[in-house]
């Protein structure tokens, strides 16, 4: 088992940007995740993985205040979020790109960029658009008329433009061709490293996610079932599969459900 690396984030010396401490959260008083403790430091990339219904999205929503913790807490730069409202958390620098991409179909690319930065920031805009040059050509286009890949680039670009401290991306690959994802994820990773942004990724493409992440955390049934350095998890693929598919299935592929 990959044991020790999980406890030693790559930048252990620095204070984590975002932490969850023994977090439980859910809907109508019923917890969808329990006992979640994880942290992300500057320039660190954490991949949050697990099958559907495992509680990944709930974890992310709790981090940005859209779901209130039932127990435990979320800390940003060491300070508990408390009763801060979601838009205040966003202004504090924790940005979520939700799985619907959080873009506005009726707005143009230019209007999105306008909204993203509170003050016009030409330097940052150039820097971000250099990473996604295709957006320059689409400035006047409405987001609803763009392809899925272009929309996703816009979603990421507008988040980066706001100079976030922590960027959380939910299922970036949803509905995208694998090729596009394989191009985009490393680009995002590089930007995060450059700017010292803490990056949390929820992904269904496990291989790809682990290939760019520093650490992997695998959830199932609302709990962390496996964590480790991304490289270790990539090598021990059968462990990841076991965490996903349920161990008994792989121990005994046929017998258990005959009746």
């Amino acid at each position, binding site marked *: 088992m990959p044991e020790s690396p999980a406890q030693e984030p790559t930048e252990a010396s620095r204070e984590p940007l975002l932490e969850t401490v023994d977090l439980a959260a859910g809907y109508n008083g019923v917890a969808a995740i329990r006992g979640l403790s994880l942290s992300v430091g500057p320039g660190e990339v954490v991949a949050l993985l697990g099958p559907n219904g495992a509680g990944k999205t709930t974890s992310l929503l709790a981090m940005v205040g859209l779901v209130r913790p039932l127990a435990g807490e979320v800390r940003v730069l060491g300070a508990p979020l408390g009763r801060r409202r979601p838009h205040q958390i966003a202004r504090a620098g924790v940005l979520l790109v939700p799985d619907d991409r959080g873009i506005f179909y009726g707005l143009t690319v230019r209007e999105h960029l306008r909204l993203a930065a509170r003050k016009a920031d030409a330097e940052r805009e150039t820097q971000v658009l250099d990473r996604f040059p295709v957006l320059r050509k689409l400035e006047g286009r409405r987001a609803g008329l763009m392809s899925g890949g272009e929309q996703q680039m816009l979603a990421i670009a507008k988040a980066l433009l706001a100079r976030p401290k922590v960027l959380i991306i939910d299922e970036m690959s949803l509905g995208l061709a694998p090729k596009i994802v394989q191009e985009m994820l490393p680009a995002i990773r590089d930007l995060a490293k450059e700017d010292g942004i803490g990056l949390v990724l929820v992904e269904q493409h496990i*291989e790809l996610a682990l*290939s760019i992440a520093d650490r992997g955390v695998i959830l199932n*049934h609302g709990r962390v079932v496996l964590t480790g350095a991304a*490289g270790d998890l990539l090598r021990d693929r059968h462990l990841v*599969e076991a965490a996903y598919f349920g161990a008994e299935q792989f121990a005994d592929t046929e017998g258990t459900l005959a009746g």
Partner: protein
Amino acid sequence: MSDHSASAPSAQRGLHARELTVRYGGLVANDSVTIDVEPGRVVGLIGPNGAGKTTFVDAVSGFTAAEGEITLDGARIDALPPHERRAAGLSRTWQSGELFGNLSVAENLLVAARTGGWRTLARDIFVRRRRGAGDEVAARALEVVGLDGVADTLARDLTLGQQKLVGVARALAGGAEVLLLDEPAAGLDSMESQAFAARVRSIADSGPGILLIDHDMSLVLGVCDIVTVLEFGKQIFTGTPAEARTDPTVVAAYLGAPVEASHA
């Protein structure tokens, strides 16, 4: 209920969706998908998120417009509105449960068993009611899914797992030839999930055909007779669970194809 033990299921019995295509604007959410659900069989429909599984269920049950042909026990149903497809024997559940939260569990089941109308209105006003007439309908449906003691609970007070089961019971209440289950086990823990698998099998053995969508691979691969895999709206695989487990396209669709690790 159909009696499938008497004769081998003919090609006409059960649900047959032929080359179903669903478009949302420019996006093809289902691209010519063909699935057969014969009486007594459990057919699994799996695929990564956004592959078009729920769209397929919506199309078959009449909640989304689709091209293609849908027959139930030999009769075309693709032009019928949803409630008539239900009356014809095609029943579905919803991913999010979609129970009537303000009604008790028993009432949720009775809604499906007695669907109202002008004649019902007249009977409500003028005909004396038997006490507890609906109780056995509810009790029977709950027994099939293995829930008891919750008949009088408000649906929204149930746990998510129980709500899913009541959803299945509601789909069965009043009779169903074919059952479409949209992620019935999401939110169940692995123990509950296994118990649920046994329920699904026994429901199918009692007659109806079942189309099962789920992300719990052990559930789907364990319980289904046939598995169909969708990716980006296309049908990339149809075969037995054993074949699915070793099929490289299926594994790639779920876990992603191995990439060159860019790590040091």
